[in-house]
């Protein structure tokens, strides 16, 4: 029986008397004009959750439509639903989720700093995020957009009569929020580490945030500029993507995927770092191959920039270009595989505690593995020719982004919930939700692999009758998934009022964030923390 099951571990509480960052200015002004990274993280968490609910509602419409082969919804409504689902989930939930919430809260604490390097820019980023979100919601309000989240030209520039401007402006503005967050994180990691916190002592979550920030800073401007070109082309009527002038619509796809493929790694890299924290804590072992974990994250960030062409095998690309992009895409699987091996090796002979965060993290490893392996199938041009634009692709990226990234995000929320709120949640309900999520996810998306393999194309509101069984199963799974996403909202909110008070280090974890009180004081630490090697689980907690 572990210490967690027995209740709360008795521990020294040197800083438990310090007033937390919640005290101080409690007014709405005190929150909306705060520069405290912890408060901004909470503002972000609330807004990101709101967008998740909006995007989830659109997903529910999609699954509702696909219950019968003829489609329950009119075509235009369906097209607008999947576009809204994609735009909101990609730019307003998946991309920001882990970095701006947990990353914002934890990065300075994990490196022993008082705050991010640029607290004002941090707050400004949140306003940009909300402002961009307002444009996207306005686009929905005005009647929606039907281009799909990819805004492919010439449809988006010449033919669509929907609110493309509003959606593009929304994504453009949010892009600046992403850029400034990435910039802030990079500078903070370089200049704000407490003495003794060397690069090779950084927690892997910090490494993940660092890698993702580099990708954010280098990829997002390309998207912003490309979407600006689409918008200008709609205004003026001529532009670089305009085929009637001899412009190149394929150029749009190249530029878009030059951003959007690295964007996938923006979603998964912080999740990878986060999983390492959780797995190492609940096996009470050092992460196996720490250095390889850091290098593989950087390798993913770098190689991720050179694989975009695998989205365009059927768009008209020379055979040689396809071969090179295919090879590079296989190459990026190597560092990802190293990470899976290392997590598994960390588990081996570990004293594993199956707590709720651990269940989420283990679910992440399994689902990411399946998502990653099917990615290799899609990276082979000959197979992609057959599977392109089918539900196989949908299943693949949902396994990586939802199965991988979202599972991990929720694992992280549970893991650091005591630190952020100072309260313990119901472990039993949390475990139930984690298992339900794993089951619900597989029931929803595994049938989509089969559907895609049998040739069901994506983005249609109707389908052939032989696909109905699997579609109904998938919709049933979506119901389970919806329940499993609602549960944490309920019991976590419940814990705020009724949960047991959390000690500074409820999981017996290492890492500097566990050396301060729960919740931390405004300055994060009253006494300068003492950094040691990362994951020193073979030594007692300080």
């Amino acid at each position: 029986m572990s210490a967690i099951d027995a209740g709360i571990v008795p521990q020294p509480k040197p800083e438990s008397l310090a007033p937390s960052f919640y005290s101080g200015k409690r007014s709405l002004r005190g929150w909306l004009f705060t520069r405290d990274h912890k408060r901004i993280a909470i503002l972000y968490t609330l807004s990101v959750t709101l967008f998740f609910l909006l995007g989830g509602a659109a997903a529910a419409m999609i699954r509702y439509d696909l219950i019968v082969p003829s489609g329950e919804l009119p075509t235009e409504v369906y097209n607008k639903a999947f576009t809204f689902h994609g735009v909101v989930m990609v730019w307003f939930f998946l991309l920001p989720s882990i970095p701006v919430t947990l990353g914002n809260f934890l990065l300075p604490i994990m490196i022993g700093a008082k705050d991010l390097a640029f607290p004002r820019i941090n707050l400004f980023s949140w306003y940009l995020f909300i402002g961009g979100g307002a444009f996207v919601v306005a686009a929905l309000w005005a009647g929606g957009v039907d281009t799909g989240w990819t805004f492919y030209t010439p449809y988006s520039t010449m033919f669509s009569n929907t609110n493309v401007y509003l959606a593009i402006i929304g994504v453009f503005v949010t892009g600046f929020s992403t850029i400034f967050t990435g910039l802030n994180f990079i500078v903070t990691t370089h200049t704000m580490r407490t003495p003794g916190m060397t690069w090779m002592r950084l927690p892997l979550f910090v490494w993940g945030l660092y890698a993702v920030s580099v990708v954010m800073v280098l990829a997002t401007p390309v998207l912003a500029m490309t979407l600006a070109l689409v918008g200008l082309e709609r205004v003026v009527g001529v532009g670089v993507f305009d085929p009637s002038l001899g412009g190149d619509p394929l150029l749009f796809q190249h530029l878009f995927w030059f951003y959007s493929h690295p964007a996938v790694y923006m979603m998964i890299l912080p999740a990878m770092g986060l999983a390492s924290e959780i797995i190492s804590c609940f096996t009470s072992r050092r992460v196996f191959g720490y250095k390889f974990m850091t290098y593989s994250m950087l390798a993913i960030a770098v190689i991720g920039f050179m694989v975009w062409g695998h989205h365009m095998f059927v768009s008209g690309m020379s055979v040689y270009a396809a071969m090179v992009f295919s090879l590079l895409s296989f190459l990026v699987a190597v560092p990802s595989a190293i990470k899976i091996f290392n997590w598994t090796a960390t588990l081996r002979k570990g004293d594993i505690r199956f707590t709720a965060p651990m269940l989420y993290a283990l679910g992440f490893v399994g689902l990411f593995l399946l998502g990653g392996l099917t990615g290799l199938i899609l990276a082979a041009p000959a197979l992609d020719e057959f599977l392109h634009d089918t539900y196989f692709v949908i299943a693949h990226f949902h396994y990586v982004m939802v199965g991988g990234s979202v599972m991990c995000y929720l694992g992280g929320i549970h893991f650091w919930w005591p630190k952020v709120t100072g309260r313990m949640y119901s472990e039993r309900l949390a475990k139930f939700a984690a298992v339900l999520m794993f089951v619900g996810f597989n029931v929803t998306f595994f049938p989509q692999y089969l559907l895609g393999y049998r040739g069901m194309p994506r983005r249609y509101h109707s389908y052939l009758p032989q696909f109905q069984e699997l579609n109904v199963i998938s919709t049933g799974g979506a119901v389970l998934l919806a329940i499993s996403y609602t549960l944490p909202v309920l019991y976590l909110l419940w814990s705020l009022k009724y949960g047991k008070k959390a000690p500074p280090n409820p999981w017996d974890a290492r890492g500097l964030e566990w050396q301060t009180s729960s919740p931390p004081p405004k300055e994060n630490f009253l006494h300068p923390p003492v950094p040691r090697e990362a994951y020193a689980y073979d030594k007692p907690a300080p």
Partner: protein
Amino acid sequence: MNATVADSPLEEARRAHLEEQFDEPDQQHSAASLGMWIFLATEMLFFGVLFASYVVLRVLHPAGFAEASRETDLLLGSGETAALLTSSITIVVALRAIKLGQRGVATLFLSLTAALGIGFLVIHGFEYHSEWEEHLVPGVRFLKFGPHAHAVELFEVMSYLLTGWHSIHLIIAVSVVLGLTWRVWRGAFGPDHFTTLELAALYWHLVDIIWMFIFPLLYLIGRAPG
């Protein structure tokens, strides 16, 4: 961390400008300049999209692009280039002056920098004007016949995107420098406090360097007939 060693007056003055999240003035300075360098990298990528598009379109339509670039005004373009190149010198002189505590020199050279930037914008305004007269504004007022008419219009699209986006940057840079000139004149900066000025100079140089790429792409390449 704490002032255990007696600080020099300069060090004490630097400490007065320290924000609460930092421990040391040097740390604050390196954070600010690293932040600026990263921001400049993102700016390069914004322009990178335009440069990449230019390259793709030029490869697709070499003859049309050559024809269009012969119609650019080399004299005005060279004048703009000279103005911007000079402005990069004047802003560095201003920065050095403020580090030496020479407020008057700094104010003078900052004003010169802003004036050269405005000069660039004015010359470019003339170019836009003559293109309007010659019906060379793509999508809005474009009239051209011949086998390469479409390609010429694409060239003009690229030209407006590149110079327009660059001019927006220069307008921002000029506004920043004008604001700083005022503050330097009022004595807001000195040897203990010049980071903002240094960052502005970095940004100015970037705007300048980007022009050094735009100028040959639009005005020089393919100019010679045949």
